Structure formats: structure tokens, C-alpha cells
């Protein structure tokens, strides 16, 4: 049964992708996308229902002829990249793809035949969680993209309408992500990994403007570099005869698997946009919003951290593992600090994504059972809240024609429902009792007990302070109301709003159900790998739920406060100046002025350029040390 289900999840999006490619822009295509989205989501849920309590299961699939097909596709990808690299004069991309292809082909011919294996697919609790994230959130994003992209092309007539290939790549992306989380054969894993690299490259370059093309190549360069790391890991496995199966390799522990684990973790660092590779994710903002949402929440960057967490047991307690963790911790703090200076909502979200992934990576590098527990929850909460935020910002942008946080004041009046959903998303990202904070709390506990944990404790303590600042000021901006604005929400398409509703419900649902998720999925997984498990404690779970209930009930008091009939409304204090309802007042010399309010961005303290330089320097040092640590003993031996 599970075999069919896994194949369905991997292949069905592919089928949809092909349909999107051939069907013209017609209601039929829209319905195909909607129905497929629902089916993919349902498939993931069905997987949960049928196999959440059956632990880790390996599934036999013959390597051939799948392997053959994969090899052909890998070559095709290489040719495509080669062509594009030459056409856009990007020698670096050409060089990287040549090196990578050479490594992979050498491995294929020299070693792969000797390493044939049966159990090429597997499913366990962690892959179920990932499948749910990909299936449910990914499909919702695709459905949202239907009306978003229509609107997008209305607003940007100068951009060529290539929606066919757009949806094609989106669904290929989902398919590849399913492939990653179900692959036990590392060669398969690598194949799907490369597909996501290419897919993200094509999506970022969608608009084909010069900026988009350059940023797409930036992403490609970094991910290809990571891909070379992955290829080297495969080669090492081939040379040493280490197991090619993910399960056996990880079981082998540090003695067998440390080198490939570090190389794959390196690939994971590039894919999850950790410093010094963060710039590609920031550059990816040029793409249409659903792409950002997809890259940030359910795919791509999640593939990176997935790989690192898979190898966490190997990295745990090793010096290279500590280096990985330090890269993550540094990224967490610095990216959070840089987010303070951003007024562009998407850029701010990007920095926050990088920061949160940094925390996950830090947990993965530490690799203790507590840390992995925290990391998985972080992934879940981050995926739901971040997708909601990105899509909401996309909707807002189409209505107010700006993605600047400073322009979002009064949103609670202009677009009350969307604003409320952004509020849910933001609170979900940083406030107790919502998800991200629970996980941050768990990771803090994990760090304290780890050796050398003081550094991480400090990073997380200072990082939390900073996080608080930038989220709260956005939150405040949304409910500031300088003018009596009119409600323009009616202009938003119903479909977009429904997707946002679904995601908001998910954010709240995941928070309410979090003890359940932790008990029935995360804990069995951690237990199966480490034989130990951590818990928040029942008291604390009850208190968290209590707080959530209080927050949800509190708005009811608005019924009491909301009607101001028996009260007097006072004007805002403007030093005694009379002010009109739309905030005009007579300034000095009788000049008419309008009030405008702006947030603090603390450029002088948290300047992006300055922090970025520090971050890149530190992280390059750490990454090099990490690589050196695995190379030098090999050379000496």
C-alpha cells in the first residue's frame, strides 16, 4: 500500500505538471491545478492516517530502470544548465556544472553498479511530517498562484506570460521534494536534490529581467556548489564502500559516515541559505510571491535542513558538527539583526526565514535528541506561518501596490481580514504561546545541555530580543490608523482569501494540536533514532494551551469596549494643536501639514552591510574549518 502511495505522491505532481504544460490558459487548467492540489494534499494526509504509527519502513523498489531514467534526466539538466550558462555568459555556472557532472558520471560508472540496493524508498515519521508540509502547504500555494499570477500579469504587462511553464515547474518542484523526503538511496536523493536546484533557478528567473536572471544564476551557483559537495559525498561512499542507503549510512555513525555527512551538510547549508550563502535567498525575492512562499516555507530551504537533520545523529558530538551548528547559530543572530533594518516586507521575511533556518541548522549540528526534537517542530511551525505571511504580503501588494511595511498602516481598516491573518502569522512567528516560540524554547533547552552550549545560549538569547523588535514593529504598523480609510478588501479574489484562511486555520490548528503532533510523530521518530526522547512536560503544555485560549477569547472583550456609544472619543494629543480627522494640522508659520508616522530601523546599529560583512567572514571561516577537518585526516591517512 505505502509503495503505491509514495509513488502517487512523487509521480502525480509530475503528471499535473505535464498537464499544466500542455493545457492552454483555460478554466480546465485552473481546475486541473485545483483538483490536483486537493488530491496531493489528501494523499499526504492519507499517508499520515495509514502509517503514522508504523515507524520506519523501507520499501523495495528496483533501482533499474528508474536509475537509468534519472541518469538521463541528470544529463539533460546538465546540458540545459550548460546551454543557459553559455547563452547568458556565466562561466562560473558552466564550470560548476562541468565539475559536478564529471564527478557524478565518474561515480555512476565506477562505483554505482557495485552498490546496487533494493530498499530505495522509505517512509518514517519525519518524512510523513515533511510530506504533509509539502503536500498541504505546497498545494495551497499552487492554488493561490492561479489567481495571483493572473493578477500579476495584469499588473505587469511588460513581462511575458509563461504561466504554463510556471505551473509546470511548481509541480515538478513538489514532486522532487516528495522524492527527497522518501528517498533512501542517496543517489536518488541527489537526483531529486538537483531537480530542486534547477527548478528554483528557473522560477527565480521567471520574469527574465536582467536582475532576475542575475539572481537566478546567483542561486544556481551556490546550489551547484552545494551539489558538488553532495557529489563528493557520493564519491567518498563509492571509494570507501560505505553504505549508499541513508538508513544504513546514518546507523554507521561518525566512524563511517562523518565525511559524507559533513559534505551533505555543506550542501544543506547552501540550500537552506545559511551564511555565507544567504544572498541567493534574498535575491530570489524578484520572483512572483508564490515562488517566494514555496521556496521559503515548504520546499527548497526545507530540503536543506531536512538533509542536515537526517545526518544529525552522525554530526552530533563531532567538531565538524559543532561547526555546522555554529554557522547556524551565527546566521540566526545576524539575520535576525539585519531584519530590523528592513522595511521591505518580503526582504524582512527573507531574513527571518534565514534566521529560523539557522536555528534549525544549529539544532541539527548539535544533533542531540532534544535538539532534533526542537528542530522538527521548528520546521513545522515555520512552514505554516511563513507561507501564510508571504501569501498575505503578496495579496496586500496587489491591492496597495507596495510591499513596504511603512505603507501598510491602516491595513486593519483597509483590508481587515487579510490584516488579521498577517497578525496571526506574525504572532505565530514570535509570541508565546504560538508555535515558533515553543520550538525556540525547546532549542534553548537543548543547547544548554550541549557541550559548549553557552555560545548557542547567548546567540539565542540575544537573537530572541532582536526578533521581538522587528516582528512587533510590523505588528504595530498594521494596526496603526492615521486616516479613516475605506475598506478595499472586496477587490481581493475569493480564491486568494480562501487559501489565506486555510493557512491561518493551519497556524492556529498546529498550535492547538502541537502536543498531539509532538507525541505521535516527533517523539516516535526521535525515540527510534536516539532511544531517548524529550518532552515539554504536561504542565507546560496545559499552560500553553491555556494562554492560547486566553488570546483567542480576549477579542470577545471588544464587544464590550467596541461600542463607544456611552463614551467620549478624544483626539490624539498633538501638543495642543487642533488636528482634523485625517490628521492635518497647522504647523509653524501656519503651514498646513499632515501627520506621518514612521518606525525605527536602527540603521546605525544594525546596518545590513556591516553585519553581512561580519557574518560572511565568520561563516566562511567556520565552513572552511569544517571542510578542512574532514579533508586533513584523510590526507594524513
Amino acid at each position, binding site marked *: 500500500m505505502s509503495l503505491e502511495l509514495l509513488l502517487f505522491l512523487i509521480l502525480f505532481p509530475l503528471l499535473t505538471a505535464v498537464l499544466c504544460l500542455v493545457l492552454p490558459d483555460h478554466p480546465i487548467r485552473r481546475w486541473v491545478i485545483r483538483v490536483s492540489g486537493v488530491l496531493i494534499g489528501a494523499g499526504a494526509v492519507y499517508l499520515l492516517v495509514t502509517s503514522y504509527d508504523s515507524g520506519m519502513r523501507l520499501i523495495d523498489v528496483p533501482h533499474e530502470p528508474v536509475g537509468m531514467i534519472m541518469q538521463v534526466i541528470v544529463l539533460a539538466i546538465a546540458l540545459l544548465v550548460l546551454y543557459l550558462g553559455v547563452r547568458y555568459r556565466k562561466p562560473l555556472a558552466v564550470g560548476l556544472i562541468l565539475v559536478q557532472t564529471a564527478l557524478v558520471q565518474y561515480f555512476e560508472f565506477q562505483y554505482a553498479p557495485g552498490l546496487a540496493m533494493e530498499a530505495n524508498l522509505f517512509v518514517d515519521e519525519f518524512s510523513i511530517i515533511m510530506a504533509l508540509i509539502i503536500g498541504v502547504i505546497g498545494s495551497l500555494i499552487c492554488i493561490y498562484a492561479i489567481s495571483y499570477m493572473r493578477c500579476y500579469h495584469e499588473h505587469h504587462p511588460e513581462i511575458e506570460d509563461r504561466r504554463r511553464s510556471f505551473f509546470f515547474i511548481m509541480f515538478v518542484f513538489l514532486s522532487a521534494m516528495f522524492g527527497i523526503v522518501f528517498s533512501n538511496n542517496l543517489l536518488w536523493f541527489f537526483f531529486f536534490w538537483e531537480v530542486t536546484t534547477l527548478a528554483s533557478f528557473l522560477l527565480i528567473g521567471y520574469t527574465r529581467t536582467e536582475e532576475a536572471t542575475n539572481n537566478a544564476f546567483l542561486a544556481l551557483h551556490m546550489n551547484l556548489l552545494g551539489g558538488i559537495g553532495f557529489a563528493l559525498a557520493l564519491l567518498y561512499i563509492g571509494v570507501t564502500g560505505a553504505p549508499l542507503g541513508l538508513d544504513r549510512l546514518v546507523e554507521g555513525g561518525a566512524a563511517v559516515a562523518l565525511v559524507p555527512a559533513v559534505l551533505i551538510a555543506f550542501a544543506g547549508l547552501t540550500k537552506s541559505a545559511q551564511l555565507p550563502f544567504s544572498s541567493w535567498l534574498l535575491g530570489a525575492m524578484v520572483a512572483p510571491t508564490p515562488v517566494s512562499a514555496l521556496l521559503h516555507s515548504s520546499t527548497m530551504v526545507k530540503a536543506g535542513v531536512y538533509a542536515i537533520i537526517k545526518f544529525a545523529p552522525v554530526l552530533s558530538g563531532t567538531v565538524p558538527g559543532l561547526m555546522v551548528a555554529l554557522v547556524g547559530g551565527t546566521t540566526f543572530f545576524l539575520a535576525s539583526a539585519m531584519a530590523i533594518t528592513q522595511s521591505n516586507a518580503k526582504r524582512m521575511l527573507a531574513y527571518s526565514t534565514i534566521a529560523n533556518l539557522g536555528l534549525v541548522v544549529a539544532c541539527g549540528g548539535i544533533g542531540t535528541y532534544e535538539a532534533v526534537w526542537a528542530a522538527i517542530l521548528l520546521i513545522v511551525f515555520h512552514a505554516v506561518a511563513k507561507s501564510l505571511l508571504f501569501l498575505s504580503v503578496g495579496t496586500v501588494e496587489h491591492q496597495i501596490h507596495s510591499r513596504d511595511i511603512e505603507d501598510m498602516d491602516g491595513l486593519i481598516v483597509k483590508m481587515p481580514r487579510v490584516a488579521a491573518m498577517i497578525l496571526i502569522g506574525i504572532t505565530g512567528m514570535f*509570541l*508565546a*504561546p504560538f508555535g515558533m*516560540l515553543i520550538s525556540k*524554547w525547546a532549542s*534553548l*533547552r537543548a543547547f*544548554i545541555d550541549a*557541550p*559548549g*552550549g*553557552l555560545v548557542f*545560549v*547567548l546567540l*539565542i*538569547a*540575544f537573537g*530572541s*530580543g*532582536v526578533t*521581538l*523588535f522587528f516582528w*512587533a*514593529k510590523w*505588528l*504595530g*504598523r498594521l*494596526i*496603526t*490608523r*492615521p486616516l479613516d480609510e475605506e475598506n478595499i478588501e472586496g477587490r481581493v479574489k475569493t480564491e486568494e482569501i480562501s487559501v489565506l484562511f486555510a493557512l491561518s486555520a493551519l497556524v492556529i490548528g498546529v498550535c492547538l494540536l502541537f502536543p498531539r503532533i509532538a507525541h505521535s510523530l516527533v517523539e516516535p521518530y526521535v525515540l527510534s533514532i536516539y532511544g531517548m526522547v524529550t518532552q515539554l*512536560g504536561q*504542565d*507546560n503544555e496545559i*499552560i*500553553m494551551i491555556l494562554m492560547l485560549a*486566553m*488570546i483567542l477569547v*480576549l*477579542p470577545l*472583550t*471588544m464587544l464590550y*469596549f*467596541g461600542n*463607544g456609544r*456611552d*463614551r*467620549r*472619543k*478624544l*483626539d*490624539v*494629543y*498633538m501638543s495642543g494643536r487642533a488636528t482634523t480627522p485625517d490628521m492635518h494640522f497647522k504647523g509653524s508659520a501656519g503651514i498646513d501639514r499632515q*501627520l506621518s*508616522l514612521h*518606525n*525605527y530601523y536602527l540603521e*546605525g*546599529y544594525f546596518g545590513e552591510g556591516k553585519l553581512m560583512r561580519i557574518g560572511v567572514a565568520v561563516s566562511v571561516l567556520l565552513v572552511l574549518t569544517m571542510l578542512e577537518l574532514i579533508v586533513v585526516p584523510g590526507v594524513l591517512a
Partner: protein
Amino acid sequence: MIAWLYGIAFVILAPLLGGLVAGIDRRVTARMQGRVGPPILQSFYDVGKLFEKERAYVRASQNFYILGYLIFIAFSGALFFAGGDLLLVIFALTLSHIFLVIGAYSVTSPYALIGAERELIQLMAVEPMIILVSVGFYLASGSFYVSEIAAYGGPLILLLPGVFIGFFYALTMKLRKSPFDIATCHHAHQEIVKGVTTEFSGSTLGMVEIAHWYEAVLLIGITWLFFAWNPLVAVVAVALVYLAEIFIDNTTARAKWGFALGSIWLVTLVSTVANLAVFYIGGMA
């Protein structure tokens, strides 16, 4: 592990104690300035009066946010005195302050906005220290639960002197005392027309005052934990700490936010690293 009765007692008694402390604070402050000062019960009179005033508003939603502030600050204090998880207490406290900040944002006033941003800077400045205090308690006593930290037999202050210094430094800001009272303060200083509370009047302002009482008692509670092994010492120590804060309040001028943030972070970093590193080095040996 969690004694809810103490929590409920806190919700009822803390305003009484907090109001009294505020009254004594004002009295001592007056004496330091060579004045007689108001009656000890003055804070209660003030809040009583605020609730007698007309219930006017600037934005109807402001009361909702301020109610959230009050409820969650009481909740976090209750959790603390019930012996709950210290980190959770801190998170609830942060949540409550976010409510205050949002309330200040919601009224859309230039003064309140500056107050809100400065309140956020305060939160950002103090959050690391507060988290590190609980980490320190955990490393020293082996538990995050207030009940277990309080029951720890030895003098935690001797194990955590650096953490205590950092906490003391940050406490000045938490208690809204000069030189770090950058968002709002308890005195008749008129700077930025009292920041976050600028647009609040009557019962809304009264709720903010009560919330401050709760917070003061909670902070006293955290200070107490350092000395909890001996109640007598603890009473004296807490009183001295509070007196010292009043003294600092009266002898310093308000700092700029940049200095406030920078210096608190620096003190936090130096004092806690120096102190907590001992545990890690000791643990490895």
C-alpha cells in the same frame, strides 16, 4: 510541581504589595530629594481616582490591548509564584509587553508611537538578560521550575554573582527607572509626554498602573530567587536592591536609547559569560 493556590494568591495580593512598594518608592524618592513626599497609600488613591474618571478613548480597541497587557502580566506573575517554568514566565511577560506596545501603536499618536518604539527597544535590551538569568538558575540548580529553584538549598547568589550583576543592571530598565526609563516612567518627568501611556486616560491608565505593580512584584520575586535559601537574608537583600535602584533613579539623568541598549547588552554579555562559562568548563572537567 505547580501550586496553583500561590498563583491565585499572587493575583489577589500582588497589587496590594505592588501599590505599597510604589508608595514607599515615591516616599523614599521624596526624602532623597529633601521633600516630605506623598502618603504611602498614594498609589492606591491615584488608581482609585483613575477608575472614577470618565471612560474616554482615542481608539476603541486600545482598552482591549491594555486589558491583554494586564491579564498576561498577572498571568506570568501567577505562573511564577505558582512555581512554574521560569522560561514560560518570561515568555508570558514578553507577550504582555507586546500587548502594551500594540496598544500604544493602535492609538496612532506621535508621542505614543515614540513610546512604543522605545518600549520595544527596552524589551530588546532586557530580553537576553532575563533569559540568561533563567539559564543561570538552571545551570546552578538543575531546574527551570521556580519551585525547585526556590527550594535549592544553597545560596544561589554565590554561584551566580555575575548573572546577578547583569540582572541588577537590567532591572533598572525593567523597573522603568532613570537612566533607562526611555519609554515611560513613574515620575512627573514630562519627557515625550509619558511615552506609551500618552493617549491613555482614566481606567485604561489605571490598568497600566496596576500592571506595573504586578510586574514590580514579579521582578522582586526573581530577585528573591538569588537569595531564597534564607528568607531573612532575602528580605534584606531585596530591600537593599530596591533601595539601590531608587538611589540610581535619583542620581542619574536619562540616557539616550542607543547608550541604554548598548550598555545593557554589553553588561549582559560580559557578566553572564564570565559567570556561566564556569559551569561549562566545570562540567567538562
